[in-house]
């Protein structure tokens, strides 16, 4: 009986220390619609004021206290300044967001979806945005890559929340973003080459986790897999993408944008 209690205690402790990130499908909005639309528009205007034709955008989908060390943002995508044709036929300028999302009911499968800032922030836990604006040259290359469908070429629908950035066996939203960035930088969609380059130049985020919990997660949760890792669990995050671009002089501006309109440093 004492062994049983010890096991329960250990697993209970483990379960409270290994939440990786954000929200699940079906989660309701945490803020009033007016607050979300206002914040989403502020984020757009902040990026537009910097002259960003595109930027990498991050959101916080879960309480900070639940996130493991090193994880600040729980979903990453690419916002592209676009001419948006509305249902009434009129055209307006704003940011369209190019995402990799898990499919509803199939968490181990992803698809590419374009949505807009209010959609992006609808279910967040905190009205805070991560913003990374690459240099103009890289912006242009990323926009060209998305416009020509190269983002689809570097998409692998086999999803894992802790996908390794160093191979193409499984993929999550941040790894997909990294793939688009590297496809733009190196002007190739050859995954072997892109992954060799990631191994050589990109430093991912180590996820320190309870091995038992990882094992149980990979057995019982469809969107958790460890088979693409060898040894330590390392994955792509919004912040590691920011650091990677900064170290390679490819950042024009990056910041954390807050609900009150203030901004702070990302790294």
């Amino acid at each position, binding site marked *: 009986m004492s062994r*049983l209690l010890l*096991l*329960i205690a250990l697993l*209970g402790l483990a*379960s409270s220390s*290994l*939440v*990786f990130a*954000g*929200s*699940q*499908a*079906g*989660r309701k*909005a945490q803020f009033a*619609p*007016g607050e979300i*639309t206002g914040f989403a*528009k502020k984020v757009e205007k902040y990026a*537009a*004021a*910097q*002259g960003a*034709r*595109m930027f990498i955008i991050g959101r916080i*989908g*879960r309480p900070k206290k*639940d996130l493991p060390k090193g994880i600040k943002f*729980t*979903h990453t995508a690419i916002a592209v*300044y*676009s*001419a948006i*044709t*509305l*249902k*009434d036929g009129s055209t307006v*300028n704003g*940011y369209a967001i190019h995402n990799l*999302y*898990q499919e509803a009911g199939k*968490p181990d499968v992803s698809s590419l*979806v374009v*949505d*807009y800032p*209010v*959609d*992006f922030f*609808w*279910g967040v836990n905190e009205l805070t945005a991560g913003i990374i604006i690459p240099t103009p040259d890289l*912006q*242009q290359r990323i*926009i*060209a890559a998305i416009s*020509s469908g190269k983002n689809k070429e570097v998409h692998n629908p086999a999803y894992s929340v802790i996908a390794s950035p160093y191979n193409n066996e499984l993929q*999550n939203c941040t790894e997909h973003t990294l793939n688009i960035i590297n496809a733009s930088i190196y002007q190739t969609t050859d995954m072997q080459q892109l992954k060799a380059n990631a191994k050589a130049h990109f430093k991912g985020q180590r996820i320190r986790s309870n091995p038992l919990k990882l094992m*149980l*997660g990979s057995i019982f*949760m469809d*969107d958790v897999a460890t088979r693409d890792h060898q040894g330590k669990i390392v994955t792509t995050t919004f912040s590691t993408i920011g650091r990677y671009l900064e170290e390679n002089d490819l950042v024009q501006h990056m910041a954390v944008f807050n609900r009150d309109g203030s901004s702070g440093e990302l790294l």
Partner: protein
Amino acid sequence: MKLLTSFFTTTIALTLALSSTPIYAQDSAQHTSKAGKHSALAVSHGAASSAKVASAAVAVPLLVVGSAGVASVAGGSALIDSATKPKPLTVTEVTITADPAPNQAMQTKRQTTIEIKQEH
């Protein structure tokens, strides 16, 4: 008895480990499909606000080419002038939203069809 204890140990341990907190919960969930979003947006903008909510049909990436205006990058010929400081861009005041997920859109379509049939 030993077998029974082992069974309960495993069951309780797995329950605690996997369900007490959303382990590894990823945020790659699509907020567009959150129930009630479109109606909530409509209500929040319907009363006092002058801001519009509109559904998007298509979005085409834009690059500004010098002072000549706006050009699509689709042809691959548009260039950002990287030598000069980026100029601020304008964004619409309209709140743009994507349509609901396909499964929800299909449900709406089906309901509409049924309503039409009932009228005849």
